[in-house]
């Protein structure tokens, strides 16, 4: 079920009605939320709810054992079982065809004639999110960083909580499970703020991503021609805005919906396009994934504790796997590799050049960071390397006489939206929406809210999927 759909409006109204009715005690409300979460997922593909159940049962059992066992070997075996099941799901459902394709290509490259039939495996929605979430639980249990979940119901709800089930934020157990222990009710202020977050999240998705930007990005990346530089840049900028509004929009909706229930989810984006440098970017973009990769991959690989070479290896591996997490294609690996290179270059430069950041050089550096990020988005969006290569050449003005596929109006539209996005991120980089809302006159804020709602209605989004559902 999509947040930007009529069925979700009905679903949410029913869930909120039941949640705030006096029909149920807290335990039954949690049962209702769990059932609602399975319905939310099952309305997409009912049989794949079984994967959620398996993940839940395996990790609950592993967590229970990890809490009581003292024998380190046995504890490791339980952890490995959890990792094997979750990563096994990912390997089979997400990377099965990719692995087979590359295996076939490898055999053909060494002269062995082999043709494999694609397995055409359906990719369960949100599998990368919920498997990472449940793995964080067992890893934290193994490292004795958290207490085990008090009840199976609390744990099952942690794995399946519908606002963040299919596209995050990837929430750690200590941030969410403990909230289920005592009855939660949103205060009026929280409830209304949750509604506002849901509105602005939908505005980002339906109006900004789908209505204003996606068409231009699709026209440019779908073109088979070598493009004019302006078209290549416009398409890439449009995609940079589209993916931000799409994903940040989803996260904002998720946080807002959870808040309607009185549950707090962590921020997933903090105005990333105003980042100064790439370490800053990854503290602001998809925060729940980057912190997951830092805690469960980069640091276990050695982090910065074993010298500079080991640190660069750890960083590169983390970014490569981070790229692959996004999709089973080499273009995503290149995207990750570029970010790895950026981070390494940044660390080298930071040692050599000392700059005191102020408002003037800050915005230039932020713009430079954003420009470099756009180069990486080309590989993220292009389905084939040939498309990415042509786009990059056009963006560096190396394709003379490239084809013009965009009308002037579309170029102006994208440039205005992206300029607004960048300036908004720059202005907001050290503050928060809530802080700004708090300082705004309530009547002005009400008019702004009404405008968001009106534009969502007149955009009539036709239920476009969120981009990150495929990851």
């Amino acid at each position: 079920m999509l947040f930007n759909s009529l069925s979700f409006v009905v679903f949410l109204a029913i869930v909120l009605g039941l949640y705030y009715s006096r029909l149920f005690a807290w335990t039954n409300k949690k049962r209702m939320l769990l059932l609602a979460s399975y319905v939310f997922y099952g309305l997409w593909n009912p049989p794949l709810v079984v994967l959620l159940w398996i993940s839940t049962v395996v990790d609950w059992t592993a967590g229970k054992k990890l809490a009581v066992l003292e024998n380190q070997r046995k504890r490791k075996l339980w952890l490995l079982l959890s990792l094997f099941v979750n990563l096994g799901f990912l390997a089979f459902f997400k990377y099965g065809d990719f692995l087979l394709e590359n295996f076939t290509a490898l055999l053909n490259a060494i002269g062995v004639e082999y043709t494999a039939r694609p397995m055409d495996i359906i990719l369960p929605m949100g599998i990368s999110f919920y498997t990472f979430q449940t793995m964080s639980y067992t890893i934290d249990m193994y490292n004795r960083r958290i207490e085990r979940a008090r009840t199976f119901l609390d744990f099952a709800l942690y794995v399946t909580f519908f606002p963040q089930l299919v596209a995050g934020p990837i929430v750690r157990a200590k941030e969410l499970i403990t909230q289920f222990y005592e009855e939660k009710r949103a205060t009026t202020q929280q409830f209304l703020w949750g509604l506002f977050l849901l509105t602005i999240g939908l505005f980002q998705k339906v109006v900004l991503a789908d209505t204003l930007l996606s068409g231009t990005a699709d026209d440019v990346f779908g073109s088979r021609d070598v493009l004019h530089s302006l078209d290549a840049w416009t398409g890439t900028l449009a995609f940079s805005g589209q993916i931000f509004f799409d994903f940040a929009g989803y996260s904002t909706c998720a946080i807002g919906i959870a808040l309607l229930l009185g549950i707090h989810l962590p921020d997933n984006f903090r105005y990333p396009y105003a980042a100064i440098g790439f370490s800053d970017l990854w503290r602001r973009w998809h925060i729940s994934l980057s912190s997951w990769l830092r805690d469960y991959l980069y640091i276990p690989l050695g982090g910065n504790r074993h010298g500079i070479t080991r640190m660069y290896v750890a960083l590169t591996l983390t970014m490569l796997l981070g790229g692959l997490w996004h999709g089973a294609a080499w273009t995503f690996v290149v995207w990750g590799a570029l970010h790895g290179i950026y981070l390494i270059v940044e660390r080298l430069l930071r040692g050599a050049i000392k700059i005191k950041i102020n408002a003037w050089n800050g915005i230039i550096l932020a713009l430079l960071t954003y420009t470099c990020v756009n180069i990486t988005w080309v590989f993220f969006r292009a389905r084939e390397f040939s498309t990415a290569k042509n786009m990059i050449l056009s963006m560096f003005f190396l394709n003379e006489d490239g084809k013009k596929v965009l009308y002037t109006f579309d170029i102006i539209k994208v440039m205005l939206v992206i300029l607004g996005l960048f300036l908004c991120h720059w202005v907001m980089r050290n503050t928060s929406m809530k802080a700004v809302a708090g300082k705004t006159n309530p009547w002005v804020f009400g008019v702004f809210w009404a405008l968001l709602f009106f534009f969502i209605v007149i955009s009539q989004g036709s239920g476009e999927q969120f981009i990150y559902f495929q990851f």
Partner: protein
Amino acid sequence: MNLRKSFILASALGLLAVIGWEFYWRAQDRLPNIDDNKDLWAIQRSKLKNPSDDQVVFIGSSRILFDIQNDLWRKHTGTDPVMLAVQGSSPLPVLRDIVENTDFKGTMIVGVTSGLFFSTTFPEAPPWKRAQSKVEYFNDRTYAQRLNHQLSIPLQKNLAFIRAGEENWDTDVDLKTLLSHQRKGERAGPLPSPFNLFEEVSLDRNVQMLERATNDTAYANTIKVAWQDILKGDRPPPDKASTMAFFLEYATKFQEKGGQIILVRCPSNGWFKEIEAKAFARSEFWDSLVLQSKLPSYHYDDYPQFRNLNLPEWSHLSKEDADFFTTELISIFKNDGVLTNPKTK
């Protein structure tokens, strides 16, 4: 932060703005309209999950969709029309789907618009992909998508501003379409002529010519210009050999299951008829199809009563003449005894 105050104001203003938007579009002569989308097609296709003897399936493109009126068909034949024609597409992907994936063995009426029927078997070509995407949607649609469609119907029926059709009509009033009207200049080539809606659809996919397209010549002319715009460019040549072979293979399979196929060529006139006569000469395409398939076949030009019908935009019949065409065609079928269902005899 006084969110209560902001919320009350936002609710009131938001509601007023939406009501104003609705009145504005009604004042612009936009009326509530059902969209002929993939969900509506899938509902028709689902009727073939447990096919019955009294069903007659229609496949083809927009002409048979406009020219056959479901209510009259139901009334005069006593059979249930299952309308699976897809606008601007080849009927071949739907034929294959019915043959391979259903137990249907009744009568299938194939609308033959030569430019689409003989266009291609290449999966990525638009006439093929449009029809195949409907078949795939039927197979892949989720329960949430079914629910969304059901919930959208009351809105489509009652609100004039709910117009974001799958065909991307220029008369749609969603924000994306409205913004696209602001395009000027020729940076990316000449702007295409606006393609205005000329259909009215009911929930059983009974499609009729919009009254405005019949009565308002200027409006009908905008559609004629759009046809010329669409058809004047370089178009890939027809692939008669592969389309014919594909059709014969699946028609034979369908007949072997016990089904019957009837071919129908619906009317066209004016500029459309002229270019069809040039590019798809009857002797070379239609007659060849009839000869090779040996199926009961009906070309409108062979019937004097079908020669001077009203086609406001050259390609589809007006509502009145679609009624006439349907009634007459049924009468011809009955006279020829080609409708095998007991209820039609």
